[in-house]
């Protein structure tokens, strides 16, 4: 009885909070309502929907021995206590995606993003992670590509691998671009991030040579040194002799990131890649916890409108209307195809009991969604004028601080002359105008929350702490992603020329690393030199690719359910799959063929060529921009074709296996 009352109270509180959000009018709204609405929705979904998934759809059964127990080897197959594994899985899935996407989507206002994050995770993202985790757990921890090959067919399997590699390339390029945009002309940020490299070498030496295996103490020492570097950065930025050395333009930083990605991928992992991974994981967990604490302590006021006028597609942060682009921009946090790779990677080999998959598969994704809600809150507490002055490209703002004031006012928001300069000074930066990419505005929001909760005098330090935290784990994604991309490329290239597949052969390693770094580096340089800032065209492409990977994962999930006698419940994956196919196909189509040159790659290319003919653009630069547009268009088309091929191949399996057709499945009855 008490439990029933408790759930009725939670449901009523959640419904009440959604009601307050829906009916709210006026200048500001307290962030507590967003938190209450989201958390109550998560609790209800976890208690009821994930229980239905666990018991009825997936049939989790603790009498069945998991692969972690059966194949235990003390290395990757390790039965792990439920809450430790929850932390492990959460640390693996929560990254830059759920932090940056919601900040960019805030150009539509806080409401569309909030609704999509909550509804999307409950019915889509968490279901995908859960189903794939269980599917992989019951097949000895097989990867998504292997599952696709086994369940759908070898063509689908190979296509899935090609799609994963292509998505990695775009992901690495766009995340590297976020870092470049955050560190541009920021000596404090550049110095702190550069310090992580010698710190990582020192940690590597500590845990490999000096005290083998002592990773925890090396990491604690590393985190302490990082804090020293953070404070030293302030001094460097204030020094007239040192500041110019660390004040770098975007192209220079981009080449630095490219060189870093290549070196980290070819040298032994213990030197650079692994210690930086530990540093970033410690920082990530600590900072996310601090952010949650800070938001709860300060309960800041949301200043952004619920819905802005840019829902019509005229927005300066990225082009495109609320439908479909809100659902593309926010991928991680609502549904992220990349999670399917993690859920079919290390985690399924560590599940001690089958029922542990429910908190880890479904629960950890709800937590990741909550991180995205916090990022959305951090962006929404900025004044709308400040948010748009930071996130719109300089060309759109009019080219100068004075012009920006006029432009922002024309958009219907307020910005006082000198306001951006004062804000930049308080954050220890030279300028915050047109700092696109999402990371700087998230950092300003986080700095205001931390300053409110833990001390006003340190605002500039908090800002650079937030920038360091974002750059640190994005660069860790860049180096580990490059390494994984290298292995994938070697495997695929090995089909054509066998020696390429030998991962221990140094020339093959160097060549494959160069190919992978070259591919994402090309998109990165394209983004950095783009007059509109690059995020504009690359982030939608990343969102599309991630959502299409989710469509592939949900097709695999649906196939698992149908092939193993759960066709009646296959709607749990078919529902989000249908929505994603509608959203991504529309978005792909618009990116390819939309008449507005701000949205469509091809119409942008034809606008450029008419500019060249008219003589307003020099031909060499025009030719390069047109080439970029065509590559982007080709990539969007390839994503779309690959995904639909996998979906259609899966649908053929579904129809063949469906009991309604009277064809009994040759596979022994085994739950997915």
């Amino acid at each position: 009885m008490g439990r029933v009352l408790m759930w009725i109270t939670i449901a009523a509180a959640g419904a009440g909070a959604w009601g307050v959000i829906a009916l709210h009018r006026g200048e500001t709204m307290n962030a507590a309502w967003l938190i209450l609405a989201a958390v109550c929705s998560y609790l209800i979904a976890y208690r009821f929907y994930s229980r239905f998934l666990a018991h009825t759809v997936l049939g989790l059964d603790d009498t069945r021995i998991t692969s972690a127990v059966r194949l235990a080897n003390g290395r990757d197959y390790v039965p792990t206590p439920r809450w430790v594994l929850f932390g492990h899985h959460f640390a693996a899935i929560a990254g830059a995606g759920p932090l940056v996407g919601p900040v960019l989507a805030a150009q539509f206002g806080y409401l569309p993003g909030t609704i999509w994050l909550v509804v999307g995770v409950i019915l889509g993202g968490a279901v995908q992670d859960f189903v794939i985790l269980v599917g992989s757990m019951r097949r000895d921890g097989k990867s998504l590509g292997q599952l696709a090959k086994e369940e759908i067919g070898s063509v689908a399997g190979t296509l899935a691998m090609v799609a994963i590699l292509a998505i990695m390339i775009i992901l690495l390029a766009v995340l590297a671009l976020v870092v470049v945009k955050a560190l541009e002309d920021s000596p404090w940020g550049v110095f702190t991030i550069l310090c992580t490299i010698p710190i990582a070498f020192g940690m590597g030496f500590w845990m490999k040579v000096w005290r083998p295996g002592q990773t925890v103490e090396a990491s604690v020492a590393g985190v302490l040194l990082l804090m020293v570097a953070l404070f030293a950065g302030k001094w460097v930025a204030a020094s007239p002799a040192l500041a110019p050395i660390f004040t770098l333009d975007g192209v220079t930083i981009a080449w630095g990131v490219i060189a870093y990605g290549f070196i980290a991928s070819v040298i032994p992992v213990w030197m650079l890649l692994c210690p930086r991974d530990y540093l970033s994981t410690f920082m990530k967990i600590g900072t996310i916890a601090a952010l949650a604490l800070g938001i709860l302590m300060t309960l800041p006021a949301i200043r952004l409108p619920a819905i802005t006028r840019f829902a019509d597609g005229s927005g300066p942060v990225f082009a495109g209307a609320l439908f479909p682009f809100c659902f593309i921009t926010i991928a991680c946090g609502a549904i992220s195809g990349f999670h399917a790779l993690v859920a079919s990677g290390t985690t399924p080999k560590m599940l001690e009991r089958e029922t542990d998959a429910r908190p880890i598969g479904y629960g950890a994704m709800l937590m990741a969604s909550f991180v995205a809600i916090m990022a959305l809150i951090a962006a929404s507490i900025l004044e709308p004028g400040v948010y748009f002055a930071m996130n719109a490209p300089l060309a759109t703002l009019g080219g100068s601080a004075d012009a920006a004031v006029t432009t922002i006012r024309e958009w219907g928001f307020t910005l006082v002359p000198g306001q951006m300069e004062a804000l930049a000074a308080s954050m220890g930066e030279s300028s915050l105008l047109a700092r696109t990419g999402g990371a700087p505005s998230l950092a300003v929001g986080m700095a205001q929350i931390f300053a409110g909760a833990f001390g006003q005098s340190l605002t500039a330090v908090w800002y650079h702490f937030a920038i360091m935290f974002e750059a640190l784990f994005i660069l860790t994604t860049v180096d580990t992603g490059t390494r994984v991309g290298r292995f994938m490329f070697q495997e695929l290239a090995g089909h054509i020329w066998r020696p390429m597949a030998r991962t221990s052969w140094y020339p093959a390693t160097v060549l494959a690393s160069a190919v992978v770094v070259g591919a994402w580096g090309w998109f990165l340089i394209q983004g950095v030199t783009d007059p509109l800032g690059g995020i504009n065209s690359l982030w939608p492409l990343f969102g599309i690719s991630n959502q299409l990977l989710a469509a592939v994962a949900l097709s695999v999930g649906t196939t698992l359910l149908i092939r193993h006698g759960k066709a009646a419940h296959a709607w749990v994956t078919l529902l989000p799959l249908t929505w994603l196919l509608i959203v991504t196909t529309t978005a792909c189509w618009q990116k390819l063929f939309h008449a507005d040159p701000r949205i469509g790659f091809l119409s942008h290319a034809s606008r450029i060529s008419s500019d060249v003919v008219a003589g307003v653009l020099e031909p060499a630069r025009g030719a390069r921009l047109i080439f970029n547009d065509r590559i982007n268009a080709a990539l969007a088309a390839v994503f779309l074709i690959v995904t639909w091929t996998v979906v259609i191949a899966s649908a053929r399996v579904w129809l063949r296996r469906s009991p309604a057709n009277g064809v009994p499945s040759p596979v022994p009855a085994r739950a997915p």
Partner: protein
Amino acid sequence: MTISIRWARAVSAIRRITGMPDYSVYLAHHRANHCDQPPLSERDYFEQFLEQRYSGVSRCC
């Protein structure tokens, strides 16, 4: 439970959450299943673990 056991458990949990190698887990597994062979040294275990962890997708964006 003594403080040293609690401490060892906490460190083991941190290691597994952050994806670090945990030699004590390996040793326990080895003792239980392969007691006829000598176990790997901590250094060799560390190297093998890293090789495995960084050859597949271990994180999201």
